[in-house]
């Protein structure tokens, strides 16, 4: 049984609140970066949403994914809610996959982010360009969608590092009682 003192509870709340404030500050900064300039830019909000999702509970992940999606819709001029649905789905999936099957390692995050951002770019291409049958529409996939995907995958490395730093500093660790610690130790020895 976990015993938390009032002080620990206060620290837990403080760290959690601060962590989420920083997450949303990062989301805001990413949004500003995405809306500035005329060049093609990475969709930084995708790796950011996935990165937040894999380290937090599923509801918060879904909400964060949806918010990031709405922001992408605004800055990319897409149907409001289109990317929100996609990203909320990705975040829930990422959260579940990391909870059940994968460890919190960079390579896993990288693969999941690459897959998610590729799907996002591909769906974007399908629904916003290919479906309308423009002449030479394949060029958009090759010259725009793939370029954005590569930029997004590269940017995910930096996003991971920033999130890792935030989590290391502000992710509250579970405190075990002496009993729990002994039991965990015994269980691991038995497994061996």
């Amino acid at each position, binding site marked *: 049984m976990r015993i938390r003192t009032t002080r620990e509870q206060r620290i837990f709340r403080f760290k959690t609140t601060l962590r989420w404030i920083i997450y949303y500050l990062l989301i805001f900064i990413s949004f500003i970066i995405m809306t500035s300039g005329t060049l093609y830019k990475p969709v930084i909000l995708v790796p950011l949403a996935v990165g937040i999702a894999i380290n937090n509970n599923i509801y918060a992940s879904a909400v964060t994914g949806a918010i990031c999606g709405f922001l992408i819709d605004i*800055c990319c001029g897409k149907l409001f809610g289109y990317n929100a649905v996609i990203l909320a789905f990705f975040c829930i999936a990422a959260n579940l996959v990391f909870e059940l099957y994968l460890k919190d390692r960079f390579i896993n995050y990288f693969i999941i982010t690459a897959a998610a951002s590729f799907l996002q770019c591909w769906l974007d291409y399908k629904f916003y360009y290919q479906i*309308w049958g423009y002449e*030479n529409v394949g060029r958009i996939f090759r010259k725009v969608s793939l370029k954005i995907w590569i930029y997004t995958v590269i940017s995910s490395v930096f996003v991971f590092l920033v999130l890792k730093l935030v989590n290391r500093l502000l992710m509250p660790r579970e405190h075990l009682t002496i009993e729990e610690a002994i039991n965990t130790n015994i269980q691991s020895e038995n497994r061996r």
Partner: protein
Amino acid sequence: MRDFLKSTRFKILLGFLAFLVGIMIYAVTKGGYSVSGASFINTITKPFRSASNGISMKMEGTVDKLSNADKYYEENQKLKKQIGELNAQLTEYDAIKAEVEELRKFVSIKEEHEDYMLSQPCKVLGYVTNDPFKSFTIDRGSADGIKVNCPVVTAEGLVGITVEVSEHVSTVRTILSPDLSVAAMASSSSADQGIIEGSVLASENGRTRLIHVPKKNKLKRGDLMITTGTSGLFPKDYPIGTILDIGIDSNGLSVCADIQPCVDVNRLTSVIVITDFSGKKEEDKDED
């Protein structure tokens, strides 16, 4: 002393002094011009004086720097601050100047087309992220009288049309987009008509396309294409762009052309929205 006064040496010195006084008086009569001897000396000694003066100035400068370092440092800081302030003023001045120039151009639109109802000049807030057809958002919306499907222009030419309008922000679809079609004709001959419509290939170079032009036409490179105004969505006779290349369309039935828009859509800072004009269609839900 008496011996000295009687001596030849004294007489010679006296004579020399008199000679000098004579020279002085002569110099006075020259009215500011050097006497030839002085001029000769000046010419001979000029390079030496110049060199020595240079050395001494350098030395004096070094000594001055060492002795007045604090004073100069303070002065330097003060001047730096002043330069900063002046630079800020200059930047502000440049911005105001650019704004005034832009406004002057917009005034010319109103002067040329009295029937137009124009919005306030709209600043381009930013381009829609990763849009290959360069849609952008402006800082005016329905609160400023802008509606969906209002033409967006600059003094140079047509830019696009408003497609999404909120209270204070609107999104503009440009003439580079394949989703926007504008009926156009050549300014030289109204018989040569076609449709201006963006394409994936042309938009990569900031161009658009003229399609569905009959094979029998008099179009040539450099012709200016203007709006026909038949749909009621765009005002009549507004410049769109000039013809770069003419060719046969892929269907083989009509002629097409590459169009260089009058406006560089990639680098817009402000535009204006035509909220009303004579001949405007009331139910403006369909595109031209």
